[in-house]
C-alpha cells in the first residue's frame, strides 16, 4: 500500500530551520512581561510548569486581547523574526503552519523567520473553534488582514528611514530595500524590533495580489513534525504541574441513555483504603479518585466498589433503526424546489430508484484518550486542555466551578487526533471538578473504556431516498428523508453533577445536508426533509468528522448508482450528464481520470469467482468544498471479507494554501472512511454501550489499508474552504457502489462486516 499521486518534497529537511527553537533571551510581548506566563520554549512538560511558577503567583486573570490591534496578531522581534498569534489550534492537520504561510506571504518573511505559540486565552485572539474545517477558511482572512496592516505600517516607517517613497520599496525576507538603489535597506527588526505597533487594523489595507504569491500555494514542511518524530513534542497527555495529583473518573463501563444518565446506588470508600494516598472525590453522581502516583489512581478507579442505577432505556444497537423510525419526530423541510410529488408521477419519468439505508453510531475513538490538567482556586483557575474551542471550554468550566470566564485561563495542548467533538470537554470539566474538590492541581486522564464508552458519538441515521430520471438519463425528481437525533449540549461530567440533559437546536451538520443529498446534481424537483428524533432515549451525540455525511452519501450515491444500472448507463457518465456545476465536475473528472475509469454499467458483467472485484464512484462533501472519490474493492463471497484495494480522492477547497497538507488530509480521510465503512459501529444493549476498546470497536489495521491517491484541485482565485473532512462522504458512497459493482448486491446498512455481507449475499 502506498500513496501514489503525491509530489516528492522538493527540499531536504533542515529540522532546526523548520522547528525554530526559541532562543533563551527571546523577547516577549510587553504585556507578557507585565505578568504573563512564558508560553513558548517547550522542551519538556515539567519545564513548562516550572517556567509558569517561576514567575510568582499565577496570573490566571487577564482580559482577552483586542482583535482590532495589529499587536494582537503578531510581534516582530529585533532579530528580524516574527511571532504570529493564531486563534486556531493544531489538530495534526498542519493549519498552524499554513496560517504562518499566510502571514509570512503577506509580510514577505521567509518561513524560517516566523513561528507561532500555543493558543492561550490570555494571549491569543478568540477566532472561534477549530471545527467545521474552519482553520483556513475562517482563520486566514483575519490573519492575512492583520499582516497586511503590519506591512503597510512597516513600509511607512521604512519610507521615512530610507527617504524613499513607499512605491519605490520592495521587501524580501523581511528586509526592505529601495528599488534600483543597491545597499539602501532596512530590516523589519531594525524598524520595530520588539516594540508594539499600537495601530488599529482598518480592514482596508491592500492585500498582496494572488499572482504574486510565493509561499501560499507552495509546500513548506509542517513545523510540528520534527518534534513529533524525535519524541520531544509535548502532547496534553504529557503536561504536569508541580504539586498535582493524578485523577481518574469512575463511571459505569459504557454510557446509557443520554436523558437518564447514571445515579450512584452505593459507594464503599473503604474499598480503596489499601491504596497509598488514594481518595474518593464525589459531587452528586460525579465520582472520581485521586492519588499522588498515577498507577495508584488507575488501581483505585478499578478497585472502588460502586453500584450504579442505570435504567434500561436504550433500544439496543440491533433495534436502533426501527426505534428511531417509529419515533414522533420534529420535521423540517430543508429544501423544496419544484413540485416533487407531481414530478415523480409525471409522464417524463422512465425509472425510479428507491431505498432505505442505515448508518450506525460511530465513535471518535481518539487514539490517546482525552485528559486535562486543572488548578482551580477560590478566585481563579488554570486549565490545560485539548479542546477544539478553548474559549468555549473555559466558559463552561468557569460556570461549573463558580467562576467568571475571564477568571479561567485556558491553554491548548494538542492531544491525539480528535476528529470532532470527542471527550475533550468532558475531560476538561472532570479535571476542574476534581481539582476544586481536591484543593490542588489535578491531572486527569481518561482510560480507554472511558473514552470509548462515554464518547459523544456520531449519531445513527436512517435515510429513505427516491430518485427519478427520464429515458435519456436526465434527473427529474429527488427526495431524501433523514432520521437521526441531534447533538448533546451537556457533557457527561456536568450532567452527573445534576444539570439536566439538553440537545442543540437544529442547524447545519446535524440535519439533512443538501451538499450530499442531491446538491451536486442539477435536479428540477428536489425535496429534503429532516426528521429529528428526540434524543434523550438514545446515546449522546456530537459532531464527528464529516457529521452524518457518510450516511447521506451511502444512501444517496447508491440510489444514483441504482438509477444508472436501470438506465444501462455508466455510473460516471450518468453523474456527469447531471452534474450541477464546474467545481463538482472538476473533482468528478479528476478521480475518474486518476482511476482510468472505463465506461460500463454497474455490476456488468458479474463474475462467479469466489473473490470478485468492483469499482464505484461517488460525490459528497460537508458544508463547503467539493469531494469526489473512486473506490476499487475485492469481495470474498465465501468469507464475506471486503477489502478496499485502492481509493482515489479529490478535494476542491478553493485556494489550497498548502497542497501537501491537503494531500495528507485526503489520504487520512480515505483510510478513515474505509475504516468507518468496513468496520466501525458502536454496540449497545438496553442498558449501556458495550464497545469499549479496540477489540470491541475495531478500526482499520495496517494490513487492511488501501492504496490511496489524493488529488488537490487547486483554484487560485477561489476563496479557501475546508479540507479536513470533505472527501469522506464521497469515499463512503464510492465504496458502497464498488461493492455492488463486484457482487450485484446492494448493501443497505454499513459497516460492511463479513457477517453483514454474508447475510446480504445469502438473501440475494
Amino acid at each position, binding site marked *: 500500500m502506498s500513496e501514489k499521486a503525491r509530489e516528492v518534497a522538493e527540499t531536504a529537511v533542515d529540522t532546526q530551520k523548520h522547528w525554530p527553537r526559541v532562543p533563551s533571551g527571546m523577547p516577549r510581548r510587553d504585556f507578557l512581561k507585565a505578568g504573563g506566563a512564558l508560553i513558548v520554549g517547550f522542551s519538556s512538560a515539567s519545564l513548562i510548569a516550572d517556567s509558569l511558577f517561576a514567575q510568582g503567583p499565577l496570573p490566571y486573570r487577564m482580559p482577552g486581547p483586542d482583535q482590532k490591534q495589529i499587536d494582537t496578531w503578531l510581534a516582530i522581534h529585533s532579530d528580524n523574526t516574527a511571532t504570529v498569534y493564531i486563534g486556531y489550534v493544531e489538530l495534526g492537520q498542519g493549519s498552524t503552519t499554513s496560517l504562518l504561510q499566510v502571514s509570512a506571504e503577506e509580510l514577505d518573511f521567509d518561513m524560517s523567520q516566523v513561528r507561532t505559540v500555543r493558543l492561550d486565552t490570555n494571549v491569543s485572539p478568540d477566532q472561534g473553534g477549530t471545527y467545521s474545517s474552519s482553520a483556513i477558511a475562517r482563520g486566514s482572512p483575519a490573519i492575512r488582514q492583520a499582516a497586511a496592516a503590519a506591512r503597510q505600517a512597516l513600509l511607512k516607517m521604512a519610507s521615512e528611514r530610507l527617504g524613499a517613497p513607499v512605491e519605490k520599496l520592495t521587501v524580501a525576507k523581511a528586509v526592505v530595500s529601495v528599488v534600483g538603489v543597491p545597499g539602501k535597506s532596512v530590516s523589519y527588526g531594525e524598524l520595530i524590533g520588539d516594540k508594539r505597533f499600537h495601530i488599529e487594523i482598518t480592514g482596508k489595507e491592500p492585500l498582496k495580489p494572488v499572482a504574486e504569491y510565493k509561499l501560499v500555494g507552495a509546500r513548506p514542511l509542517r513545523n*510540528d*513534525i520534527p518534534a513529533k*518524530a524525535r519524541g520531544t*513534542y509535548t502532547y496534553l497527555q*504529557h503536561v504536569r504541574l508541580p504539586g498535582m495529583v493524578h485523577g481518574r473518573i469512575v463511571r459505569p463501563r459504557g454510557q446509557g441513555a443520554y436523558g437518564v444518565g447514571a445515579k450512584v446506588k452505593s459507594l464503599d470508600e473503604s474499598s480503596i483504603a489499601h491504596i497509598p494516598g488514594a481518595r474518593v472525590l464525589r459531587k452528586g453522581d460525579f465520582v472520581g479518585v485521586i492519588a499522588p*502516583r498515577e498507577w495508584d489512581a488507575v488501581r483505585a478507579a478499578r478497585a472502588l466498589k460502586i453500584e450504579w442505577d442505570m435504567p434500561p432505556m436504550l433500544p439496543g444497537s440491533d433495534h436502533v433503526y426501527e426505534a428511531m423510525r417509529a419515533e414522533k419526530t420534529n420535521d423540517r423541510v430543508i429544501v423544496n424546489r419544484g413540485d416533487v410529488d407531481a414530478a415523480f408521477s409525471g409522464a417524463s419519468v422512465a425509472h425510479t430508484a428507491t431505498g432505505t439505508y442505515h448508518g450506525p453510531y460511530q465513535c471518535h475513538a481518539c487514539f490517546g484518550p482525552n485528559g486535562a490538567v486543572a488548578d482551580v482556586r477560590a478566585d481563579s483557575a488554570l486549565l490545560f486542555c485539548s479542546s477544539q474551542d478553548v474559549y468555549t471550554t473555559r466558559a463552561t468550566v468557569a460556570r461549573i466551578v463558580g467562576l467568571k470566564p475571564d477568571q479561567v485561563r485556558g491553554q491548548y495542548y494538542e492531544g491525539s487526533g480528535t476528529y470532532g467533538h470527542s471527550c475533550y470537554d468532558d475531560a476538561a470539566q472532570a479535571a476542574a471538578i476534581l481539582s476544586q474538590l481536591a484543593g490542588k492541581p489535578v491531572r486527569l486522564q481518561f482510560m480507554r473504556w472511558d473514552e470509548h464508552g462515554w464518547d459523544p458519538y456520531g449519531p445513527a441515521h436512517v435515510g429513505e431516498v427516491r430518485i427519478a430520471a427520464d429515458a435519456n438519463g436526465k434527473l427529474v425528481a429527488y427526495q431524501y428523508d433523514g432520521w437521526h437525533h441531534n447533538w448533546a449540549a451537556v457533557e457527561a461530567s456536568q450532567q452527573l453533577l445534576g444539570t439536566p440533559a439538553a440537545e442543540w437546536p437544529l442547524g447545519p451538520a446535524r440535519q439533512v445536508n443538501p451538499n450530499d443529498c442531491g446538491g451536486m446534481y442539477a435536479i428540477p424537483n428536489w425535496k429534503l426533509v429532516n426528521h429529528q428524533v428526540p434524543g434523550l432515549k438514545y446515546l449522546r451525540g456530537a459532531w464527528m468528522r464529516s457529521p452524518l455525511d457518510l450516511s447521506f452519501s451511502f444512501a444517496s450515491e447508491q440510489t444514483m448508482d441504482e438509477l444508472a444500472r436501470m438506465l444501462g448507463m455508466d455510473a460516471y457518465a450518468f453523474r456527469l450528464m447531471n452534474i450541477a456545476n464546474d467545481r463538482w465536475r472538476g473533482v468528478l473528472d479528476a478521480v475518474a481520470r486518476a482511476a482510468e475509469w472505463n465506461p460500463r454499467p454497474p455490476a456488468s458483467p458479474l463474475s462467479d469467482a469466489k473473490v470478485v472485484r468492483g469499482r464505484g464512484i461517488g460525490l459528497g462533501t460537508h458544508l463547503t468544498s467539493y469531494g469526489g472519490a473512486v473506490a476499487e474493492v475485492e469481495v470474498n463471497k465465501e468469507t464475506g471479507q471486503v477489502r478496499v484495494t485502492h481509493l482515489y480522492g479529490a478535494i476542491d477547497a478553493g485556494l489550497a494554501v498548502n497542497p501537501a497538507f491537503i494531500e495528507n488530509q485526503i489520504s487520512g480521510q480515505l483510510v478513515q472512511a474505509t475504516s468507518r465503512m468496513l468496520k466501525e459501529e458502536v454496540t449497545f444493549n438496553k442498558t449501556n454501550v458495550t464497545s469499549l476498546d479496540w477489540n470491541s470497536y475495531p478500526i482499520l489495521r*495496517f494490513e487492511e489499508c488501501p*492504496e490511496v491517491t489524493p488529488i488537490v484541485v487547486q483554484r487560485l482565485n477561489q476563496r479557501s474552504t475546508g479540507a479536513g473532512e470533505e472527501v469522506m462522504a464521497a469515499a463512503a458512497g464510492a465504496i458502497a457502489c464498488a461493492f455492488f459493482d463486484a457482487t450485484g448486491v446492494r448493501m443497505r446498512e454499513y459497516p460492511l462486516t463479513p457477517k453483514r455481507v454474508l447475510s446480504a449475499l445469502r438473501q440475494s
Partner: protein
Amino acid sequence: MPSKIKIRVNGQMREVESEADTPLLYVLTDEMHLQGPRFGCGLSQCGSCSVLLDGVEIRSCVTPVSAANGKSVTTLEGLPHWYAEQEKLAKAPELHPIQQAVIDEQAVQCGYCYNGMMIKAAELLSKNSRPSDAQIRAAMNGHLCRCGSYPRMMGAIRRASEMMHGAHVAEQSAEASGSELAENVAAGGGEVAR
C-alpha cells in the same frame, strides 16, 4: 518503598522508585519524564506505549517494571543512540533513519501513534533492513493509527530502508531476516492478524 529495580534507559542506568508491579509505562512517563512512550489503551491493543526491551518491542502499559529489571529500555528519544550501538557507529546520529524518514515523508498527522510506529519499524529494520511490503504490513499490523496514516508510514519505512542501504549499512541475508521477522512479530505483543 523503593523497589531497588534498576533499568538502563536510553543508555543510562536508572533506579526505579515505583513499586515493582507498576507498569513500565508509568515509570517512564511519570518518574523519568520521557515523552516517547505514551498511554493509549492500557490493554496492549494499540501500540502507543511501545518501547524496546533489550531490542524487542514490548507494550510498556502491561509490562511490570520488575520485568525490565537489569535490562535495557529504549524509548523513541533513545532510538539514535540505540541505532549507533546496533550499527557500531562511533557517534549517535541526530536521528534514527526511521525518524528522518518520517520527517521527509511528512508522514504524521496528529503523530500520537508514531511512538509505537517508529519503535516497531526500528525493530523491524534492525532485523531485516530490506523488508518487503508484505513483511512491513505484517510487522506493523499490531500498531493502530486513527488518523489513517498507514500509507505514509509504509513510505517512511521504505525510505528508511533505502537510507540505511545508501549509508552502506551492513546487509543481512534475506533468509535470516525472514525467520527473524516471524519471531520478531510473535514477540511484539501486539495483535497480528492471520
